[in-house]
């Protein structure tokens, strides 16, 4: 029995090595020219999390999924991004204007997504908020649904203008209370399974949960193309799915709670390259 127990312990110790995937050591270069910072030192505010290196979700995917993100001709998101390019020039709403009526090119938004969400006029504002308020005020057009194809395609197109730039959302000043709210949510154990974001994405990244290889739950690549759903997925849609999977009552896309959570999760990626539009399983 004693001998057996020892064997068991030895085998137990050895087992994780045999199974554990962990993040891989590959390098993400897009179109053979833009090298992404996919592993960087964690921002100072994460000093008490036990994570010293933050990592892109790209490192946790299979080689096949990874390669789709390395070449824009293979990246299935680009179909939607192209549609957004068309949309940018399409007149919509009562004012008879398109985005292009006032904005010469989408390139003028370079750098913007790396700082979103951010405080604008005292309100925590996401890219979706910006686009919808713009449609309403500048164009007289109806708001889009948060996760609609049009909305996420345009969020992706604007995000693409910041690809390769470091995430850099502000968490101080008037953003601080929202950031605190988001942080509290991140550590709340939701649902009947009583699981927090941190239980999976901080304590267990690198481990498999059933067939899923857990990442750090970063949003620097959003909107991402999910192969499983064959479309662009919004940040809030992903949050919703993760809370639902705790057998919990989730929050609505576009809710103030998810805005706050988005700010906090984005800040855990400060320093990683914007990878929009990323490809995930």
């Amino acid at each position, binding site marked *: 029995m004693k001998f057996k127990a020892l*064997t068991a312990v030895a085998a137990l110790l050895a087992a994780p090595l045999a199974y554990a995937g962990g993040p891989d050591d590959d390098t993400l270069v897009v179109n053979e020219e833009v090298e992404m910072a996919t592993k960087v030192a964690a921002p100072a505010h994460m000093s008490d999390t036990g994570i010293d290196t933050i990592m892109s979700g790209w490192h946790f995917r299979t080689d096949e999924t990874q390669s789709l993100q390395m070449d824009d001709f293979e990246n299935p998101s680009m179909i939607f991004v192209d549609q957004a390019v068309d949309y940018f020039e399409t007149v919509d709403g009562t004012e008879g204007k398109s985005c292009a009526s006032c904005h010469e090119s989408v390139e003028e938004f370079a750098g913007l997504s790396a700082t979103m969400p951010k405080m604008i006029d005292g309100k925590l504002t996401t890219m979706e908020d910006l686009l919808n308020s713009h449609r309403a005020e500048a164009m007289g057009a109806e708001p889009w649904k948060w996760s609609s194809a049009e909305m996420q395609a345009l969020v992706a197109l604007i995000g693409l203008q910041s690809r390769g730039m470091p995430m850099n959302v502000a968490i101080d000043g008037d953003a601080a209370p929202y950031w605190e709210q988001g942080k509290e949510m991140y550590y709340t154990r939701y649902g009947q399974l009583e699981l927090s974001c941190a239980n999976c994405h901080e304590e267990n990244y690198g481990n*498999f949960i059933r067939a899923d290889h857990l990442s750090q739950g970063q949003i620097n690549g959003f909107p991402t193309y999910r192969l499983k759903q064959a479309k662009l997925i919004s940040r809030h849609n992903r949050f919703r799915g993760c809370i*639902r999977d705790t057998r919990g009552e989730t929050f609505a896309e576009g809710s103030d709670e998810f805005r706050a959570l988005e700010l906090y999760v984005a800040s855990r990626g400060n320093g990683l390259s914007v990878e929009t539009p990323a490809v995930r399983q």
Partner: protein
Amino acid sequence: MRLTTITAAVTLVAGVAVAETVAPGDVQFTEYGEVTQSLTGQPGDAERGKTVFSSRSKGNCVACHAVAQLADVPFHGEVGPELTWTGEVRSAEELRGIVANAKMMFEGTVMPAFYKTTGFTRPGDGYTGKAAAGDLAPILTAQEIEDVVAFLLTLQEG
């Protein structure tokens, strides 16, 4: 002496016959987080316990635990320890306590409580994402807990 034995046996039988299912709120944990009393008074069925362990809609234990004896079940997780030898190292009492509410033994553990109905933050209606409608049922029934404990006890090497 003989008489006593018989009386004891009779009491035992009677005990089993009148035993009622212990409700989630009435489960008694020892200070180490064990549950000494069967939740149903009925022996567990290891074969059914294996299904509870493996199936996504029941315990889905395999999502977090690898078990060598379940080679036919795809995708074993690694969030929790491998349980290939758990029947050698843990008693039925410990295992019942761990499955009913692992937080009584491992403070703050990631492992969910499978026989608990209150004290949740934003409990949902299963996996719908909607709010729970009325009282929650525990994730596993009392008998399913006993079945899964019986299965765990079979996990021994060789």
